[in-house]
Structure formats: structure tokens, C-alpha cells
């Protein structure tokens, strides 16, 4: 691997502060000390020009990508950026980037292999973030389900004078019979109880 160059100035445009922080940390670990995060995209072009970066990384959920495209046009600008898509020789890594949800713009005449390292790092951090987000979502929904089931158990224990275990067994049996998730049956119990109030 080539030694990473500390002199490269990298801008991260991402409205998600956690993902941007994860990416910045990765870049710093790889030896890039000049990393600037932009979260608020108001007057984005002026800010990017002021920073004068070598590489710009932007998430694909960001409508401001179109703003960056204007940099190709400004005839008065000395340095013009190019999108990573201009060179299609590495189709796989482009597809991986789009899949991960990130795009890169390279300003000036950086060597391709140096940019590739940054892009690869970017892809892996974006994917790691997506996994984390996914895990968090699943944990959250598991917690929600737990709460719903607990409430339904309480309703059944009161209404049918059941023990907690028996109430849970009833929910589980109904779910199996109806080919539903326990949480779905529990939600029906809560809804029904609301109606009977």
C-alpha cells in the first residue's frame, strides 16, 4: 500500500453527523489530518471554495450534490473538480460507492491510486454505518415489540384472570394458529381493549 498523504485536504459533506464522524475518524486513522466536515449546506459552493479541498466526499441522500456539479462549470475557477465517475476503468468500485450511498469529487490532478484508497475507506465506513443503523433500528423495534407484548399480557391477565406465563402462552398460541408474529397479536389485543373501554 502507498503511504497516505497527510497533505491532502478532504471535505466531507454529510448532514448525518454520526456517519460523518465515523468517516472522519477513519480518514484520520489512515493518516489524513486535514479533514473538514460540512453539515449545513447553505452557501455550499462558497464554503468549499474557501476550504479549497483536494477531495470532496458527499452522501447520495444529499440534494446538494447538484450544487457541487456547478463547480465543473465555473470558468473563472482555477481548479476544477472531476467526479469519480469520469474514469470508468474501475466500474466495480463506482458501483460499490453508489451502493454504499457516497460519491467523490476529485479536485486537480490527484493520482488515481491515492484517491482509490480514500474511496475504498469511504465505502467501508458508509457500509459500517448502514449496518450500525440497521442494528439500532432492529434493537429499537425489538424494544417496541417487548413493550407491546407486556401491555397485552397485562390486559389478558386482568381480563381473564391469568398468570403472566399463561397470558404469554395464550398470545404465542394465537400467533402460531393465525400465522402471525406475537407482537402483531399483542397489538390486536391492545386495539381491541381500547375499543372495549
Amino acid at each position, binding site marked *: 500500500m502507498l503511504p497516505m498523504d497527510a497533505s491532502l485536504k478532504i471535505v466531507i459533506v454529510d448532514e448525518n453527523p454520526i456517519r460523518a464522524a465515523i468517516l472522519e475518524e477513519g480518514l484520520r486513522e489512515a493518516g489524513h489530518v486535514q479533514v473538514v466536515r460540512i453539515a449545513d*449546506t*447553505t*452557501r455550499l*459552493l462558497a464554503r468549499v471554495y474557501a476550504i479549497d479541498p483536494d477531495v470532496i466526499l458527499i452522501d*447520495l*441522500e*444529499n*440534494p*446538494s*450534490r*447538484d*450544487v*457541487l*456539479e*456547478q463547480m*465543473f*462549470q465555473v*470558468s473563472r475557477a482555477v481548479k476544477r473538480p472531476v*467526479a469519480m*465517475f*469520469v*474514469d*470508468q476503468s474501475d*466500474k466495480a468500485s*463506482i*458501483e460499490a460507492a*453508489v451502493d454504499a450511498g457516497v*460519491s467523490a469529487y476529485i479536485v486537480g490532478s490527484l493520482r488515481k491510486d491515492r484517491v482509490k484508497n480514500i474511496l475504498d475507506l469511504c465505502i467501508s465506513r458508509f457500509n459500517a454505518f448502514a449496518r450500525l443503523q440497521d442494528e439500532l433500528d432492529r434493537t429499537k423495534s425489538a424494544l417496541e415489540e417487548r413493550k407491546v407484548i407486556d401491555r397485552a399480557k397485562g390486559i389478558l391477565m386482568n381480563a381473564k384472570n391469568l398468570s403472566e406465563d399463561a397470558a404469554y402462552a395464550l398470545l404465542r398460541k394465537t400467533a402460531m394458529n393465525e400465522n402471525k408474529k406475537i407482537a402483531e397479536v399483542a397489538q390486536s389485543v391492545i386495539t381491541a381493549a381500547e375499543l372495549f373501554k
Partner: protein
Amino acid sequence: MSGEKLRIGFIPLADAAALIVAVDKGFAAAEGLDVELVREVSWSNIRDKLNIGIFDAAHLIAPVAIASSLGLGHVRVPILAPFGLGVNGNAITLSPALHVALCAAADGDVRDPMVSGRALARVVAKRKARGAEPLTFGMTFPFSTHNYHLRFWMAAAGVDPDEDVRLVVLPPPYMVESLANKHVDGFCVGAPWNSIAVDLGIGFILHFVSEILARTAEKVLGVRSAWAEENPDTLVRLIRAHDRAAAFIEDLANRDEVSAMLAAPNRIGVSADVIRRTLDGRLKVAPDGRVRANERYLLVGRAQATRPDPVQAAWLYAQMVRWGQAPLSLDLLAQAAAVFRPDLYDAALGKSQSQARPPPAIDGEPLDHVGAFAGPAFDANDIAAHLAAWKIGRH
């Protein structure tokens, strides 16, 4: 029932109407197509995802289809436009302050684009004289009709769009906010964003672009040339589904149903009322409720708007040349015109093909296919002479 799976990217704008209705009203399914519409946030995303094959087809601003085919500003990927999703539909909106200034400087009715353009020139000159910052106008993309429409209007009245004002790219959803924050003094954008600025009381619609240019191709259904070659039958079905959708949209009896369909949160996601006004071409143009009606405001399924017109592609290429985005060459002109494919459209819909060159004028439409408010008639066969007639340009 499962049909052939297709992914189509779109931006939530009124001229995505045919794409949305084709899916939500079942015209695509009737053609055996199982279309997943993917809502996107930027034209860059749409272009890249179409280019690398994540999308089979896409809602494209017509100039993006041409730029991509010519490799302008980006990697060259040949794109075909076998179907027009909309002609016209843009408007120019000003901040209240600029609107007042323009009206005060006007020597006539500001609804006349030459009067408004001259008034803009006076406002610009005054600002320059007192050393004020230049006026800033928002548009949606470097290769966009919005960019060319603003430039055409200003330059016709002597305002140099690169020297006298600032043009900045803004994503449509940020336009209104930027006008409210005074980051821009005006913008040119498609529906529904002009109406939203007016409804919020922060903008005045100065012009429907159809008052400046009677007919300009706005959005097309774009596919990769390679994809079209590999999937000729799918392409035919895609064209047929969208043609039926466009006709359905234009039928006044369906207007309420269509407006509600487009307004859905996962589609355009604005009020059905705003969509209805757009389709009817009756827009509230001022916060006090003044309405302007123009049936040409947005053409979806009327006046042959669905049939791609190579003269329109040539006009767009001429704008790229005029503003320094593309060199002038007959080869590039031919490539640009060939992006628009009326032959594929005609074949898919069983219409007789017209081989006439140049194509005949469309009934009731401008003879030169464009109908600009100023300057010479457009001549697709002599772009150099056409451009030479304009004083302001970068070519």
C-alpha cells in the same frame, strides 16, 4: 401477477406525472411491466444511477440526456429519449423586493418579457453604480432548461448572465427557503416550487417560461442506448404505457383523480390543489391571490408533447454552445438531435413515420418549433448563424 421488473428513478416534480400515473393507474402493469418508481434527491444521482444500470429508465431534464450522450462535464454514456414527459412547465419567481424594484423600473407591462428584461437591466445597472452585490438567481442544474431559460430571457434584454448577475445551482426543495433567506433574489424552477413560494407569501411569479419560449422540451423518459438495443420489446411497452398515462392526465374528467394520485406522500408529496393548478395552467402569481392562466404553462399529453422533437434537442444543444458548455460542431449537433427518437415513439405507437427533413411544424405550434419572444427564428440547420445573431454569449 408479476411482470417484467423495471426500476425508474424520478424527482418529485409535476412533470413526473406520466411516470407516476403509468404505475399507480395500472397502465404499466397492463403492458406486463412491474415498475418500481424510485424517488431521488438530485439530478446527479439520477444520471449516475441510470448510467451504471441501477435504473432501467429515468425522469431526465432534457439537457442532461444530451450532455450525457455527448460526454459534457461527465463520462459519456449514450442516452435515448423515446418519449417526452413534458414540454414547458417552468416559471421565474422573484423575491418581493426584486419584484417591487422591477415594477418600478419597468417602462410598460412587466408581463411582457422584453419589458421585464429591460427593467432587470436597469435594476442591475443601478446596483452596479452603487457598488451593491450582483443579484443572484437560482436554477437547478448546469445542464438544465432552467439555466438556459433564465439566460435566454436576461440576455435578450442585454443582461449578461455571467457578468451582470450570479446564477447558482440549487436543489428545487431548497429554492423556496433560499428565497426566504435572501440567499437568492429569484429563481427559475419547475412546478410545484413556484406556487409554493407564492403560497408562502415570499415570492411573485414574474413569468411562465412559456411566455418567453412557446415550446421547449423539459423532461424526457431516458434510457441507455445499449439498454434500448437489448430490450426493444420492453421499450415499446414502456412507451405505450406512458402514452396512455399522458392521455389520461390531459383528460379533464380525470384531473381530480390525477391530482390526488400525484400528491401522495411517496410521489410528489405536495397538496393536490397545487398539482391541480399546475396541470390546469392556472397559477396564483402573487401572494394577494392574483391568478394567471396560460394553457401552455405545462404540456403533458397535448400538442404532441409526448413525441420527442429533434429540433428541440438541437435548440438545447445550441444553448450549450452559446453558454460555453459545448463546442460547436455539426457532428455534435447531429449526435444531440439523435438523442430524441421520434422514430421509436412512432413505431411503438403504430404511427406512420414521417421521414420529412426538417420535420413539419405541429398544428397550432410555432413554425420554428420554439417560438422565442425575441430574436430570429430558430434554425436547427444553421446554428452558427442563429447564435451569431445574439450579442451576449460565450461561444
